[in-house]
């Protein structure tokens, strides 16, 4: 299955953020969206999620127009992992994950025994089953990000879209989230995430999509697209590239 934006003009009612954008994501692959602040990453992400309506062009999923798919069915196809935040009410971790099952029930239903089983399974999968009865407000930022990932998986979607999943996480948790993203693709999900760190794209993504001022600068396999020259051009800042002598892995340093 493919999630694709075709000739998208994206933006809000009062201004256009980007034009003629084409992007495609297949199940089983990871696409990283990179670019400077205000370049349209979040707007593109929200358009692909169906939160924002494209001003021109169309978002297609499995050959169907997203606009013609009900909001409930969308939630069973695409899951969204927002940046971890502290909510108003201190729901338990289990309740937060169960909210991912909402689209599998009807308007009046509460989570079923099956829903609870799915929630328990995804919590187990991320190794946070012991957090289930804790208030979501009282766990660490890294744990919160994992809980939101678990909630997304509880939706049993084809695609998972993450907005800066590593922002505000410590170094160790950044690595953990990278590994979980790879695991999602390994399990057959299509994954799209935005990031400010090209190294995270190198680490977790198959392809990268570079966006600046609403314009696609480059797109392709991370190894080919993420070069020193292109990153310097993308961010208009000097970049240094390091290569590990043993593994041959590369990494970038800003400044």
């Amino acid at each position: 299955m493919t999630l694709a934006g075709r000739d998208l003009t994206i933006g809000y009612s009062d201004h256009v953020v980007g034009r003629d954008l084409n992007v495609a994501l297949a199940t089983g692959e990871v696409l990283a969206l990179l670019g400077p602040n205000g370049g349209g990453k979040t707007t593109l992400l929200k358009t692909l999620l169906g939160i924002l309506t494209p001003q021109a062009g169309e978002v297609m999923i499995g050959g169907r127009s997203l606009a013609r798919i009900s909001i409930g069915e969308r939630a069973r196809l695409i899951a969204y992992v927002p940046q971890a935040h502290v909510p108003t009410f201190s729901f338990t971790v289990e309740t937060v994950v169960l909210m991912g099952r909402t689209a599998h029930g009807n308007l009046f239903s509460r989570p079923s025994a099956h829903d609870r089983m799915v929630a328990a399974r995804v919590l187990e999968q991320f190794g946070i089953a012991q957090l289930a009865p804790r208030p979501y407000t009282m766990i660490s930022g890294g744990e919160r990000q994992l809980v939101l990932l678990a909630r997304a998986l509880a939706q049993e979607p084809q695609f998972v879209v993450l907005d800066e999943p590593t922002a505000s996480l410590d170094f160790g948790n950044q690595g953990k989230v990278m590994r979980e993203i790879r695991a999602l693709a390994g399990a057959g999900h299509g994954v799209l995430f935005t990031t400010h760190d090209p190294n995270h794209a190198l680490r977790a993504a198959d392809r990268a999509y570079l966006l600046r001022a609403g314009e696609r600068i480059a797109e392709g396999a991370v190894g080919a697209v993420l070069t020193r020259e292109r990153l310097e051009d993308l961010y208009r800042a000097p970049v240094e590239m390091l290569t590990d002598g043993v593994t041959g892995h590369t990494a970038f340093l800003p400044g």
Partner: protein
Amino acid sequence: MTRGFLPGLIIALGVLALGLVVAFTVGRYPVTLAELADVLLSRVTGRPSTAPAAVENVVLLVRGPRVLAAVMVGAALAVAGTAFQGLFRNPLVSPDILGASSGAALGAVLGIYFSLGVIGIESLAFVGGLVAVAAVYVIGSLLQARDPILVLVLTGVVVGALLGAGIGLVKYLADPYNQLPAMTFWLLGSLAATTASDLLPLAGPVALGTVVLVALRWRLNVMSLPEDEARTLGVATGPLRITIVLAATLVTSASVATSGIIGWVGLVAPHLARALVGPDFPRLVPTAALLGGGYLLFIDTLARTAAPIEIPLGILTAVIGTPFFIWLLAGMQRTWS
């Protein structure tokens, strides 16, 4: 912070049951527990009561309607407050956030100004509440903001201020000897004038709105998340928001039309309920309803027994609600549990 649902629900039921007993037995004409049980049992079984006729009158005709009204109004305000706090993702929101009370108040003072009689005043209050919230909703939607929730609240504040000016104008124009005291009394809230004929027009809308909110209790959980998240979890936020606002406004307007303006109940009861059973709405809604009903029963009993004259409910709920709320704030700084 995971508290048991069953223990919490039993405590809430206990509060309501105790409130019922106190409300029926305490007052200028004391009724013993045995007499109360006898009168109520005789109604259920149909056999004649052995209690004096005066006791029967007090229980069934004087206190009965008032007690039922207090339970319904308290429960209605609590459920509406719970729903609005979730919908607006803000634990400081009360049922009148969108102007239901101000609209109802303007309707009521207009009814008094035009000497419409009880039914006319209550009808105008009910319609006033609905019209005010409808106006807020339509204006808020027309503004097409990126944050519809924030705009809705701000529109509510603005329209509320305008309605307040309208109320002020009617009071200014009112006859200071007959109409103005009636308006003041109504605006402070009271169940003193409640009769059996008030119960049906109150029960209908309250039951309808409450059933809708209880049915949507799981979706209320999701609606308390940011708009984008709720939608990507599969919730059509627009239609659902209208439904919740409509249901909560229905119960609020019906309550305010019967009792006048009673603040604090819709704010305090959901907090108490959260402290008992946590923030999960399927647990919270029934618990808040029971606590709201019980709470207003105690307040109303106090209102008619604490002083030689009736103390307006709005004043009592504020006097009790304010220190209680400060105490609550002190204990819950870390989290809106």
